[in-house]
């Protein structure tokens, strides 16, 4: 009798094994920028990366995880916070970006300070207003836990965590966070149709916005000065800080607009709470400066009805399946 029970429990255990997302390239998308040859995808590495993503062990006082500022229900950003929070309630200087489709992103951070997804996590781990730790401290803590020794063994064949393997596994999970199933995508695949309002918004979007927010990723991966005024408290000149070239002054990364319904507030410092404020900025409050691109030299002209139509279109970029995809979520981690 006893034996039968043991077998039954074993089956239950396997039924709860975490379902791991796998990387894929959606149809008609460009080739990913990420070099998979240097970090071949495996289920075990993705799982390890996911567990690390949700583990506050990455912060100095074990209170902040990646997910603290990148939560799935807001398309992996910090909803409702203009500037993101870190350990000891400290506040950073920028709005945390939404995470999705990272395999197609060339540089990271609002100023492009990070040149490869693999080394991205080093920045928040060591920033004093974010996780306030450093990679050596994190690796020491990871190596002290039996749970991680098993996970590293399964993922890399070696139970000892290194900086390389830890960061590569975080990359693997991040690479699988793909949003390509919004109404927009379904319309493009001819599975659904836009309403007349969305259709008109799409036309206006292509005319006025798509040079920078280029389909299908809704970003051209470049940097631009979008004419928002300098916040003199933050004094953030964007890419200039990294390149020290005056031609980069006030340029920030052009973010994707996918899932924009959930990623408010908007801009690098989160100054706009609503999409209508963003559109009003582009039509009426562009601030001229030397690095303003030619597309914004003349104000964009949109009637209030047209703005409503553009917003209707932008809401078709909402991918609910992505927001609620259990494979990305915290549940069933342990």
């Amino acid at each position: 009798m006893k034996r039968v029970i043991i077998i039954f429990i074993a089956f239950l255990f396997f039924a709860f094994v975490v379902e791991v997302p796998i990387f894929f390239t959606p149809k008609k998308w460009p080739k990913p920028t990420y070099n998979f040859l240097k970090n071949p995808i495996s289920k075990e590495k993705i799982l390890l990366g996911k567990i690390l993503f949700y583990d506050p062990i990455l912060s100095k006082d074990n209170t902040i995880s990646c997910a603290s500022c990148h939560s799935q229900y807001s398309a992996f950003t910090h909803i409702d916070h203009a500037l993101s929070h870190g350990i000891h309630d400290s506040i950073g200087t920028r709005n945390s970006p939404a995470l999705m489709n990272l395999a197609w992103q060339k540089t990271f951070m609002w100023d492009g300070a990070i040149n490869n997804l693999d080394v991205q996590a080093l920045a928040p781990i060591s920033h004093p207003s974010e996780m306030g730790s450093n990679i050596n401290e994190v690796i020491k803590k990871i190596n002290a836990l039996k749970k991680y020794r098993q996970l590293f063994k399964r993922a890399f064949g070696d139970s000892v965590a290194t900086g390389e393997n830890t960061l590569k596994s975080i990359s693997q999970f991040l690479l699988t966070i793909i949003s390509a199933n919004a109404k927009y995508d379904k319309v493009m695949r001819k599975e659904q149709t836009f309403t007349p309002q969305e259709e008109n918004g799409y036309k206006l979007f292509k005319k006025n916005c798509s040079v920078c927010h280029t389909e299908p990723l809704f970003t051209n991966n470049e940097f631009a000065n979008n004419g928002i005024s300098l916040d003199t408290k933050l004094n953030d000149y964007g890419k200039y800080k990294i390149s020290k070239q005056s031609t980069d002054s006030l340029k920030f990364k052009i973010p994707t607009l996918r899932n924009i319904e959930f990623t408010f507030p908007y801009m690098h410092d989160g100054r706009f709470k609503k999409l209508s404020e963003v559109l009003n900025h582009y039509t009426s409050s562009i601030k001229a400066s030397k690095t303003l691109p030619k597309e914004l030299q003349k104000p964009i002209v949109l009637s209030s009805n047209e703005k409503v139509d553009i917003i209707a279109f932008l809401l078709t970029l909402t991918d609910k399946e992505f927001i609620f995809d259990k494979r990305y979520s915290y549940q069933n981690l342990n």
Partner: protein
Amino acid sequence: MYHLPNGNTVSIEILKFYISGIELFENSKIIWREKESFHLYSADSSNKTFSLTVPTKFNFDKIKFNLGIDSLTNVSGVMGGDLDPTKGMYWAWQSGYINFKIEGKSNLVSNPKKEFQFHLGGYLQPHYSIQTTTLPITDKSKIDIVFDIVQFLSEIDFSKQNHIMSPSIKALEFSQLAIKCFKVK
């Protein structure tokens, strides 16, 4: 503790740098190139040397190597071994390797603690700071290459400069000073 000719007294707490891209030449023709050629040199009180093995089957009269990490490696994601970011030679807030790191104290430094830190690196123009040197070899059975720390320290004006922590023109200039200090003994 180094007592320099100019009256400066310097103590060094950290000295670490990358040697990469080792090549051997005979009559100006390349005859050997080390694969995955990245070596982190880290000096401490007990160990001031590190050794490299090069094949002896060749005749060679010159050795060439870089001080620092090339730009392609700098943009290729996370690496292991000597290039692992846990080695303390990778910037976190901005991507890129620190090619050369020296920290210590000098009586000429103006801050109260007399401390200096020079973290030299940068993989983007105009501050791409990797440096290359080619040194002549006469006796190939045992090649002693030294880094002349006294020469390096003597060329720095510690009263004007005690802090370099990011890619910059200063980082580039200091890198150019450092490469000249490699010599065959």
